[in-house]
């Protein structure tokens, strides 16, 4: 049983405490609340130096200090407060930073609404538990034997076949019926590798459809995409040691993950706004009547500064783009503005919540759109690394980690 310390405000009165506990228990975790003496709270707040008015936030600070000082034993920390509460957001972020600076306890943060469900929390909780439970597996840096990885994403499904630390087959297609699509990419990747599926020694699956596919394919590894994608990204970018930040902007959601030696220590996930995902670029491509694969080059020739966008929204923001076209601005400028809009939103929503460490490795389907890489570079002020096969990180991570089950 993994003990996850909960530092939170408002979960019970938002009706989401049960969802948090359900998500934790699904992945073999248990929420616990670090005990604290009432009289220690003032001292803790004074020591911390941030003095919120809401008592519950003061309690959160005291509990964080208690954990860091080792007075309470927990394997991981979950920090959470109400969405739209400024006081809560400030405290949430500062105690997250404090815990990471002063301890090695994995942390995950989340701001919830009354609509938050266990399923939304599951990936976070699963990653926390994986980091605690599979530390040794996650330390693996070389793929051995003959293995495959399948990444069942919300927009596309990818498969990679690896032999002795090399990619020998790969295939992707848009996600349709989860199992059928997975079987299709799996067979095609094996075909490209020139092997029979029966020859594979292990399969690892990740992504939204991981449980369904994993069960069906008897996968050795069924793991959430945060830890798996991190491994895939550092392997592909050959940055297995030290710090890095992975920016993974996919078809439906996006992730920003900080890693140390390939193991995630913090991450944020988008997923409530299409404006910060590849979906936004898809809609723009359709409106511009260009193929999504051409959007990047188009954007590279444009200047986003010439287009005024008042919103990141895939409805209102795109309306701005269309209006701009009507005003006679070029397709190139509009494409550049669209890429910049996604990059800016990822920067504002995700990258503010983690300490961005260089190098930045840009991956996910949108990393194939060159204009998107340019936009991220503009926003960050330095060039991200885009490794080869950057859309296959999840599949590579799955093949690499599942090979860990072959030895000993």
């Amino acid at each position, binding site marked *: 049983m993994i003990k996850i310390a909960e530092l939170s405000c*408002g*979960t*019970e*009165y*938002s*009706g989401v405490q049960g969802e948090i506990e359900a998500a934790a228990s699904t992945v073999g975790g248990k929420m616990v609340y670090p005990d604290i003496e009432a009289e220690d709270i003032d001292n803790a707040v004074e020591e911390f130096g941030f003095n919120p008015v809401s008592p519950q936030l003061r309690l959160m600070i005291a509990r964080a200090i208690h954990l860091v000082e080792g007075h309470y034993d927990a394997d991981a920390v979950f920090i959470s*407060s*109400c969405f739209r509460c400024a006081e809560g957001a400030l405290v949430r972020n500062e105690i997250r930073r404090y815990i990471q600076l002063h301890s090695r306890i994995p942390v995950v943060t989340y701001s919830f609404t*009354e*609509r938050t469900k266990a399923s939304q929390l599951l990936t976070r909780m699963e990653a926390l538990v994986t980091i605690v439970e599979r530390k040794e597996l996650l330390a693996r840096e070389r793929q051995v034997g003959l293995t495959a990885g399948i990444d069942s994403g919300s927009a596309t499904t990818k498969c990679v076949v690896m032999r002795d630390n090399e990619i020998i087959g790969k295939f992707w297609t848009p996600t349709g019926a989860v199992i059928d699509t997975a079987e299709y990419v799996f067979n095609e990747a094996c075909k490209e590798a020139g092997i029979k599926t029966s020859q594979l020694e292990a399969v690892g699956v990740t992504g939204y459809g991981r449980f369904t596919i994993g069960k069906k394919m008897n996968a050795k590894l069924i793991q959430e995409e945060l830890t798996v994608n991190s491994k895939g990204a550092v392997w592909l970018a050959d940055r297995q040691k030290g710090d890095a930040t992975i920016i993974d902007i996919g078809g439906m959601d996006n992730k920003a993950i900080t890693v140390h030696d390939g193991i995630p220590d913090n991450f944020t996930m988008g997923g409530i706004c299409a404006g910060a995902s590849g979906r936004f670029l898809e809609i723009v491509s359709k409106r511009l009547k260009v193929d999504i694969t051409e959007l990047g080059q188009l954007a590279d020739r444009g200047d986003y500064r010439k287009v005024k966008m008042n919103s990141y929204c895939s409805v209102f923001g795109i309306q701005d783009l269309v209006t701009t076209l009507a005003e006679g601005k070029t397709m190139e400028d509009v494409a550049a503005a669209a890429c910049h809009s996604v990059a800016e939103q990822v920067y504002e929503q995700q990258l503010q919540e983690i300490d961005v460490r260089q190098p930045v490795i840009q991956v996910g389907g949108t990393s194939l759109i060159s204009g998107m890489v340019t936009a991220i570079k503009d926003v960050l002020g330095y060039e991200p690394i885009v490794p080869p096969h950057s859309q296959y990180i999840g599949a590579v991570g799955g093949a690499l980690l599942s090979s860990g089950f072959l030895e000993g």
Partner: protein
Amino acid sequence: MKVFIVPPNSLILFDLVERFGHEPLSTMQLIQEMVDNLEIDSPPLNVTPDDVKRGLKYAGIEVPSGIRGRLAVWSELFEQADATIIMEDAPYAFGCVGCHRTNLILNYLLRQRGMPLLELRYPLDDEEAMTMVLQVKGFLGGLK
């Protein structure tokens, strides 16, 4: 008479109201109703997203869910209250009263209701505590 207390989970205020012959309205009785209702399963308090929506009567959608949820739960009490005692600046107010923003709007709503109201500050020393208890007794004694 039914007396709503703020903080609604206060041991001191609950005890004083009861001791001086009135019925304290506290969060605890609501929690009891919620946890005893086995048909709902949203542990540990059984506050559901629908409860949070009921809070929209008191605060808009742009207000965090924890505030609306608390107001929805407490409204069941203060809607039936005959009088209120508000104790501000309680040094430690956790759990249901842990959100300062909720307490601001709650106190405002209570003041708007026009019922007998006693406003106190949490006592800082023995003298203030004695005065506070005497004020509570005087206030409750005057409720007829």
